[in-house]
């Protein structure tokens, strides 16, 4: 009888059948930020791998992927479809912070568990909301790491900032400049470079006039490549600290030569170099299910959150409800994912799960994880 009620309780939950758990995954599969969807592709591969290991309490994870092209309107439509039409059990997705902020009220109202797969704006999960969990380091964590790395350059006196004017960019640049201000280094110049622009001459020349020792660039991928190329054109030689919205390998591919990116650095959220032994297992998982995917810094980033979700689903047991999953996610403490640089800890008062980030840059032409300026990990 108890078993009957247990099965019945689970069966009444949207997205749960005796054999499956339906998870909605929102990804920017198209549009000019589409390479971020590599994060959700990696997550999907991870869940497929979990299924091949036997699943969770006899159930397989069934992912339903929806494209939102990094566009808030499409994001709202996608999440409504996942919740009301596909009736998923939980959400695990989103790369673009502005879109995540747009869909946040809908997710809160629906009460459905949502683990943020990639978007970094801390305001998505802070102040804490019952059903929202951040599965990657937030912009503030990475911004502070960026500031710390910039400050570690000997003789640093002048910093320039180039950024988009959206919340995403502020979530990186704000904490980075605040940290530097606390070290008595205030930006000598701050310039805007909006998304979609195809030329950054005005910004580059103004930065050149300011003669900075370091430049902080809170820009998406395409604009980062354009800015780095313009820096080379106008002989601006200062090192550039980018965000986790870019990665070294793809930036090199886009600018076309190592010279242009030799002084470019990004936050690094992983436990190892991308081709290092600690990440081999995860890279192999991706290759197994998506053999044509190239591994970039975005590819494995959501797998850490995926591992934490799987662990919480296991703890929640066969009689699965959203309430139980949320309760178990909240008990996640110092969970080592094997892929992220730091453990995941979620509590009811702090949903910013990952607090440790390193920095990566090119050393002798090879992407290398650094603990501070000139010092490999």
């Amino acid at each position, binding site marked *: 009888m108890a078993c009957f009620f247990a099965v019945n309780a689970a069966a009444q939950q949207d997205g749960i059948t005796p054999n499956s758990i339906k998870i909605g995954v929102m990804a920017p*599969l*198209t*549009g*000019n930020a*589409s*390479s971020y*969807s*590599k994060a959700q592709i990696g997550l999907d591969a991870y869940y497929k791998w979990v299924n091949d290991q036997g699943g969770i309490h006899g159930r397989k994870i069934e992912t339903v992927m929806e494209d939102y092209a990094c566009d808030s309107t499409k994001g709202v439509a996608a999440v409504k479809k996942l919740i009301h039409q596909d009736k998923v059990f939980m959400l695990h997705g989103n790369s673009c912070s502005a879109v995540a902020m747009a869909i946040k009220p809908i997710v809160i109202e629906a009460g459905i568990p949502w683990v943020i797969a990639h978007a970094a704006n801390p305001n998505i999960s802070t102040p804490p909301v019952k059903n929202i969990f951040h599965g990657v380091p937030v912009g503030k964590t990475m911004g502070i790491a960026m500031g710390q790395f910039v400050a570690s350059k000997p003789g640093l006196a002048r910093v320039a900032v180039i950024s988009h*004017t959206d919340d995403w960019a502020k979530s990186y640049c704000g904490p980075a400049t605040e940290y530097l201000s606390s070290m008595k280094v205030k930006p000598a110049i701050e*310039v*805007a*470079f*909006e998304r*979609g*622009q*195809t*030329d950054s*001459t*005005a*910004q580059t*020349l*103004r930065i050149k*006039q300011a003669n900075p020792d370091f430049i902080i660039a809170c820009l998406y*991928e*395409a604009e980062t*490549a*354009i800015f780095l*190329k313009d820096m080379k*054109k*106008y*002989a601006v030689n200062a090192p550039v600290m980018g965000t986790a919205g870019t990665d070294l390998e793809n930036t090199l*591919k*886009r*600018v*076309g030569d190592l010279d242009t990116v030799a002084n470019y650095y990004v936050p690094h959220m992983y436990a190892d170099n991308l081709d290092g032994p600690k990440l081999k297992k995860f890279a192999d998982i991706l290759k197994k299910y998506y053999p044509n995917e190239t591994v970039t810094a975005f590819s494995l980033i959501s797998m850490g959150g995926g591992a934490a979700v799987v662990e919480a689903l296991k703890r929640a047991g066969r009689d699965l409800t959203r309430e139980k999953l949320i309760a178990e996610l909240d008990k996640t403490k110092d969970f080592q994912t094997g892929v992220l640089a730091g453990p995941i800890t979620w509590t009811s008062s702090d949903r910013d799960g990952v607090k440790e980030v390193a920095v990566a840059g090119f050393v002798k032409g090879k992407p290398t994880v650094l603990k501070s300026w000139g010092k490999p990990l």
Partner: protein
Amino acid sequence: MFALQLALSGLAQGAIYALVALSLCVVYRSTTVVNFGHGDLVMAGAFVVYVMVVLAGLPFLASAFAAVVLLFILGLCIEVGLIERIKAGPHIGFALMCIGFGYVLRGIARAGWGREVLPMPRVLDFLPLLMGDLVVTGDSLVIFAVVAVLLGAFFLLFYRSSAGRVMQAVCQSERGAGLVGINVRAFHGVMWGAGAALGAAGGVLVAPITLLHPNLGAIFLIKGFAAMTLGGFGSFGGAVAGGLILGVAEQLVGGYVSTKMIDITAYLVIILVLALRPNGLFGRAIAERV
């Protein structure tokens, strides 16, 4: 020196805007259709070159030429197959048709490369000319040269050749041109083809200096509209001047006022020109006999 550097860069950007504005203007003046899908023709031109150069391994110059020819044919087909069919309908039908085929082109690009921001081969990377502190970048020089040749050829054809005089005749009066035996339908198709080809040339030039993605055309559509508005609707020379002025204005605004203003400069130009001088700098008010 700072201002001169900004102006130089602005002229290079403006040259591309000029090309896009001129191509919009060609279609508008010959058929009175404002092509809201034109940005996607710019994008399509760039993607054709990408496919030929990167995927098929063909030389850049031959690929660029082939892209322009292919887009000419596509433009002609759009006019003959889509626009001509709805000619008798309301003007809104033209706008919706243009938006429709633009999105189809974008969708095709997304189907193939939706998750990528693609780098084009750096064919325009030549050593810069250094004049003191002034940097004249290699890509700027190539863009200036190519756009100058294209514009020169276009204006020579339109204003100095017998074919151009036929085109001018149709632009002035379709009915009159038809009465003297000019094939107006064929003329419309050719002008749509020419507009698409010029737009494609803009895409071919811009892709190697930025990056390629399916939404690339959207920003150039707005810049093209702004340049055409500034120069005066239907004025070929005005479209070119409007593009160059817009390119320089964006850079100077970014350099001296605020970099946050660069993105809205084109929109401000559209609003100000329409409010203060609706015919633009070089457009003429159309007098109608009643």
